[in-house]
């Protein structure tokens, strides 16, 4: 028991002794035993309730008021005194306990006064019950008491004065009672079911007490004897109020016994919803909400894993955090009238279960995130045993070697070709044994299409997880790239061979002949100058032709006009040397050198092919720059029918253009003509 409780107890014992002594020594008390018994009943009822309430921090204020009711109840014992002065004081102070009572009633259960109406009612009660009896003693003697000492506070012995005071007392008292009842009714109507369970006993007993009080007051104005009888009823009614409050506490204690049942229920709870229902039953609060704290995500989630809006849900409610091992695991959002100590007891009992469910929620959230991540990965995934049994998979049915329904539980040897299954199982064994990622690729025919897959196998304890990617397109691109590189290298080699041959067969031969002719001319100079001159003339022609052939060769290697004056000028030169009319349209501004070279060779090769095969009468060459790409078109009106697959020339051009990330398209309808279109990014 706390110090306040001990102080109240000590005071109560002292006042009890005084009250008993005064009553039993009173000259004007006809039923001392009954009076002492009834006073002790009422006073100790309130004092006991007050001391119990004082032990609970949430009810401390209410406890003080209840204790005040009980302790001040002994003031009425002053009226038993044979001393006129003490008697007179007792006549004034007898109603003070009622003021404390009304105050306590209006403070219950929150412990504080809320509205101005409530404040006013309490103030009026203190005023009336302190001043009223005082005024009454100013004007009248106690009618029903013949042996009572003299009223030392009497000012004027006036029955009418006393009647007026009495009437005023009644009117104001009725007003205070009406206001009190109004406040209590409003409180009742606004109360939730748990709160009503707490209010009901106290309100009922208080209501009876107030009713009896009013009746006694009304009747007292007419008949003091009836009023005295009603007064005893009032005492009983008033004494039952603290018992009603204690009953509420007992119910709470009984509710705490249900904590044991709660622990058993929580052990069997299937999910968060079951847990929440068990908590609702334990606390008697159907409005209770349960939230779990996820420390990694720093947010609250409800029993089903959805986000919990703590701010919105806790409006009008009280939030009690549940801790386990010093960490917050959950929160109970409940009716504020639920006994806080019961909530604490429930929270402590449920801590372990709630911590376990918090872990489950955390894992579920992680699982949900990982599943979302996994689903975002476009690859096939399998979980398999060492012996090749499929345990789980993620992926599209069209990518599987068997139907999804048949896959789980089946073995790789039943579904895949033998060689593929062997390699897969080898890879799985290696991954499990070494713990390292094993990769390999294989081909499978699915829906009559042969596809290439790359599998990455990782160990998952004694199982394997396979991530399988369809690399058919990638492989095709790689093969195409490799082939294109081979073609480019071969084309380069072929060009060099051609160059060597051209040099050998052309300029080199001429220079050899020139050398011999000069030697011959030299030997003839003395004896046959005419022959020498003839030989020298011939040598001069030979030299001129050799030079021309060398120029042609140089142009074939790389036309100087292209580097020096740009594509437009180089195309005009090409057109000038062509064997048929060529109309050229090209921009004057320069393109990147690699693009100009690619465009030049496309057009040069196209013109050469047209000259050899197309039997055309005219050619159009168009070069334009559009959206960051160079568009090159060569169109002729010849016989058409060109097939890029059949000629290495066009294939070589396509390789050159594709090496710059460009495209080459050939349209060649027989009898219509041919159009070659290259698009090359200019960057």
């Amino acid at each position, binding site marked *: 028991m706390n110090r306040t409780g001990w102080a109240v107890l000590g005071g109560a014992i002292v006042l009890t002794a005084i009250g008993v002594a005064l009553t039993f020594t009173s000259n004007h008390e006809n039923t001392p035993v009954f009076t002492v018994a009834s006073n002790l009943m009422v006073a100790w009822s309130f004092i006991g309730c007050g001391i119990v309430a004082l032990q609970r921090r949430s009810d401390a204020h209410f406890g003080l008021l209840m204790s005040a009711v009980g302790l001040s109840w002994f003031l009425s014992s002053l009226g038993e005194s044979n001393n006129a002065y003490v008697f007179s004081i007792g006549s004034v102070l007898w109603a003070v306990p009622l003021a404390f009572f009304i105050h306590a009633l209006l403070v219950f259960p929150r412990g504080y006064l809320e509205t101005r109406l409530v404040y006013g009612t309490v103030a009026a009660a203190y005023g009336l019950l302190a001043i009223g009896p005082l005024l009454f003693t100013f004007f009248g003697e106690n009618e029903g008491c013949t042996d009572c000492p003299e009223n030392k506070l009497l000012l004027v012995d006036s029955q009418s004065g006393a009647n007026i005071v009495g009437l005023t007392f009644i009117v104001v008292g009725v007003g205070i009672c009406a206001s009190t009842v109004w406040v209590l009714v409003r409180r009742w109507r606004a109360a939730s079911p748990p709160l009503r369970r707490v209010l009901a006993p106290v309100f009922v007993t208080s209501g009876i007490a107030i009713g009896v009080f009013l009746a006694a007051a009304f009747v007292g104005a007419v008949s003091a004897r009836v009023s005295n009888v009603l007064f005893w009823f009032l005492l009983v009614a008033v004494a039952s109020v603290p018992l009603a409050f204690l009953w509420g506490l007992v119910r709470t204690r009984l509710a705490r016994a249900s904590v044991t049942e709660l622990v058993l229920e929580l052990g069997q709870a299937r999910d968060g919803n079951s847990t929440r229902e068990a908590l609702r039953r334990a606390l008697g609060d159907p409005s209770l909400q349960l939230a779990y704290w996820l420390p990694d995500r720093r947010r609250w989630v409800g029993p089903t894993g959805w986000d919990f809006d703590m701010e919105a849900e806790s409006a009008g409610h009280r939030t009690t955090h549940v801790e386990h091992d010093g960490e917050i695991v959950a929160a109970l959002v409940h009716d504020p009238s639920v006994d806080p100590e019961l909530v604490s007891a429930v929270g402590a009992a449920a801590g372990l279960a709630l911590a376990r469910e918090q872990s489950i929620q955390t894992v579920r959230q992680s699982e949900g995130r990982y599943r979302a991540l996994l689903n975002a990965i476009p690859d096939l995934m399998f979980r398999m045993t060492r012996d090749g049994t499929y345990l789980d998979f993620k992926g599209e049915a069209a990518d599987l070697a068997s139907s999804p329904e048949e896959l789980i539980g089946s073995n790789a040897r039943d579904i895949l070709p033998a060689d593929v299954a062997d390699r897969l199982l080898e890879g799985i064994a290696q991954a499990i044994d070494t713990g390292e990622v094993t990769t390999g690729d294989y081909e499978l025919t699915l829906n009559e299409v042969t596809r290439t897959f790359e599998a990455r196998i990782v160990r998952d304890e004694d199982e394997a997880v396979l991530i399988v990617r369809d690399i058919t397109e990638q492989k095709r691109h790689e093969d195409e790239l490799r082939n294109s590189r081979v073609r480019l290298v071969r084309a380069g080699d072929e060009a060099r061979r051609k160059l060597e041959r051209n040099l050998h067969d052309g300029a080199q031969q*001429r220079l050899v002949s020139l050398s011999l002719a000069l030697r011959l001319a030299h030997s003839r100079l003395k004896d046959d100058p005419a022959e020498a001159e003839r030989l020298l003339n011939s040598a001069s022609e030979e030299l001129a032709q050799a030079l021309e052939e060398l120029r042609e060769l140089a142009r074939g290697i790389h036309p100087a006009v292209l580097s020096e004056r740009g594509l437009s000028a180089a195309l005009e030169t090409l057109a000038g040397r062509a064997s048929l009319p060529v109309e050229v349209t090209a921009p004057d501004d320069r393109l990147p050198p690699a693009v100009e070279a690619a465009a030049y060779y496309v057009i040069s090769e196209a013109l050469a092919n047209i000259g050899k095969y197309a039997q055309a009468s005219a050619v159009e060459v168009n070069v334009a720059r559009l959206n960051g790409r160079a568009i090159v078109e060569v169109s002729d009106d010849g016989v058409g029918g060109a097939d890029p697959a059949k000629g290495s020339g066009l294939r070589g051009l396509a390789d050159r253009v594709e090496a710059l990330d460009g495209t080459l398209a050939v349209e060649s309808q027989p009898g219509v003509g041919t159009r070659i279109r290259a698009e090359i990014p200019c960057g």
Partner: protein
Amino acid sequence: MDTLRVLIVDDHPSFRTTARALLQSEGYDVVGEAENGVSALRKARELEPDLVLLDVQLPDFDGFEVAARLTQNGSRIAVVLCSSRDGSDFGPLVSQSGARGFIAKAELSGAALKAVLE
């Protein structure tokens, strides 16, 4: 010494003309010209030259192949290979073909031929 009868085999007409003029001015008797391997073999049978001046790069046959055919079965025809390329480009092929030797075209002269034949 008897005048050597020479058959010139080369696919470049300008060289055949110049070589003929050169060899004739140095006392050789150019009895014929051929522009490829097939006509070289035919004319060698017909004309029975003492010497065949044979270009290595012919349009139909490899010059070494022609040389081997000309010198097989104990034939007394002497074959001298020539080319506008350097002799070192051909390595042991010259000696393996049955030819007497090799002369670079730019260095062709009566004296060079005589040196190879001796």
